[in-house]
């Protein structure tokens, strides 16, 4: 059965993409959840739509446009937060809708027949080509190395940012690196589950992992594992039932999470490690 799926190169790419996406969701998703940056990540995801539209308008690879805009948007949020008194939530909401509006505008301005944007909004893992897969793997490797090298600093930053400032650690550097990584993760996830569903894949594996561990590094590992199970089973179901892969992955994730949470409720473990 598996062999029959794997004989298609688009399926091989899809499986690789699902595995790489799970790695990123496991690591960055955990950081996002612990630092309560979920809504900011949503804002960046939607802002990237502006970049994708711009890519079409300028005739460059849309995902490159998305990457540039997502990165700039995430850095801008940090700057605006530091320099003005505007609440982060407000800035994020503005960026969220501005990105979508710009994307729609750019696509309308693009000459010729309008491209189908559904695959960016809801993902289409079966269309992941070799180029995109290489970009994904490259970004994932960068993020894994950065988090591993700065792990202790991230841990303190996530737990008690103020104390990091007291130790005179340059928190702005850590924050900037983190925000850039969030932008990278979103771009990686766009093809897999799409802009609208990216948030789910960043949060559900971590939420599942948190049911089983209270150690940051283990939550990252478990979340990666759950992400793989969710995305691979979602992908398989979408293949056999011929339903959209993004929607299938998210609904499978939520179902798994609900079952796991239910099981934990019935069988609580007192001393988690």
């Amino acid at each position: 059965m598996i062999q029959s799926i794997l004989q298609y190169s688009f399926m091989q790419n899809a499986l690789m993409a699902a595995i790489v996406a799970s790695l990123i969701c496991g690591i960055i998703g955990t950081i996002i959840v612990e630092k309560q940056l979920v809504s900011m990540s949503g804002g960046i995801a939607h802002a990237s739509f502006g970049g994708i539209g711009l890519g079409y308008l300028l005739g460059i690879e849309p995902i490159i446009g998305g990457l540039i805009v997502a990165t700039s948007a995430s850095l801008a949020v940090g700057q605006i937060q530091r320099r003005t008194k505007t609440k982060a939530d407000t800035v994020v909401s503005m960026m969220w809708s501005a990105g979508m509006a710009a994307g729609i505008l750019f696509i309308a301005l693009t000459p010729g027949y309008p491209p189908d944007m559904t695959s960016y909004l809801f993902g289409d893992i079966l269309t992941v080509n070799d180029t995109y897969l290489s970009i994904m793997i490259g970004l994932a490797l960068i993020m894994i190395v950065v988090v591993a090298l700065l792990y202790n600093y991230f841990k303190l930053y996530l737990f008690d940012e103020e104390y990091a400032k007291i130790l005179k650690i340059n928190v702005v550097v850590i924050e900037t690196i983190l925000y850039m990584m969030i932008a990278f993760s979103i771009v990686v996830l766009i093809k897999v589950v799409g802009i609208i569903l990216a948030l789910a894949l960043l949060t559900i594996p971590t939420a599942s992992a948190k049911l089983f561990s209270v150690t940051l590094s283990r939550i990252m590992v478990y979340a990666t594992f759950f992400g793989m199970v969710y995305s691979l089973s979602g992908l398989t179901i979408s293949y056999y039932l011929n339903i959209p892969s993004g929607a299938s992955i998210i609904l499978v994730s939520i179902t798994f999470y609900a079952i796991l949470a239910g099981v934990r409720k019935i069988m609580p473990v007192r001393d988690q490690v």
Partner: protein
Amino acid sequence: MSVITVDDLTVRYEQHTALSHVNFTVEEKEFIGIIGPNGGGKTTLIKAILGLKKIDEGRIVVDAKEVVGYVPQVSTFDKGFPISVMDVILTGHLPKKIKFGHRFKGHDESHALRVMTQLGIDGLASRQIGQLSGGQMQRVLIARALMNHPTVLVLDEPTASVDQGTKVDIYEMLKSLNKVITIIIITHDTTQMWPYLDRCIYINKTAHLHNHEGEAEGDALDVCPIDWFIEGEKIQKALTEGTGRNDTKHSSI
């Protein structure tokens, strides 16, 4: 030689003035209490000393030799955060210059264990912080602050969420620490802390200083709880006799 000199300090939040022209010095190995009403500027004052809050006027000079350690309020933490006691304490030892690939070494851990033993929390190393009591969490935060060998320790209400027995334990522990380091503590527990303190600074936008000789200086206009504590009977007597201060003035105590 003063450890910390606060010179004509004014701190504002937008239009609101939190601290106005505050002056005082902290001497080496003093044990100083900072008291005053909520919203009176106590936390703002220590945040300014720690460099976390911008100063609008005046200045704060911390002697270059001094290393300042900080113990924040327990209630400000997300107890669900996935971190163990050992990891919290070790973070107190992170080098300020960001080092790629930094890992804590065996001697960091043995140092942490020594500090933990000193504070009586050595059995808790692998616990997640959500599994600690208020008093235990407080000691963990003190241990983290001690990792950097501070010469001045600043604590923000360390006994706000602990029971009576733990309170006394923490005071005694601070007293023994005070033999070697300077301690500045925000407290609401004036009555119990007073015997431990060398001096008390009452902060309510302005500063009002007290020592055990009963001398007071500064320019706070309201009645300070320390006055009440030292001269409580006298004031009470005056009140019952219907002379002196009126009731409304004391309603804030």
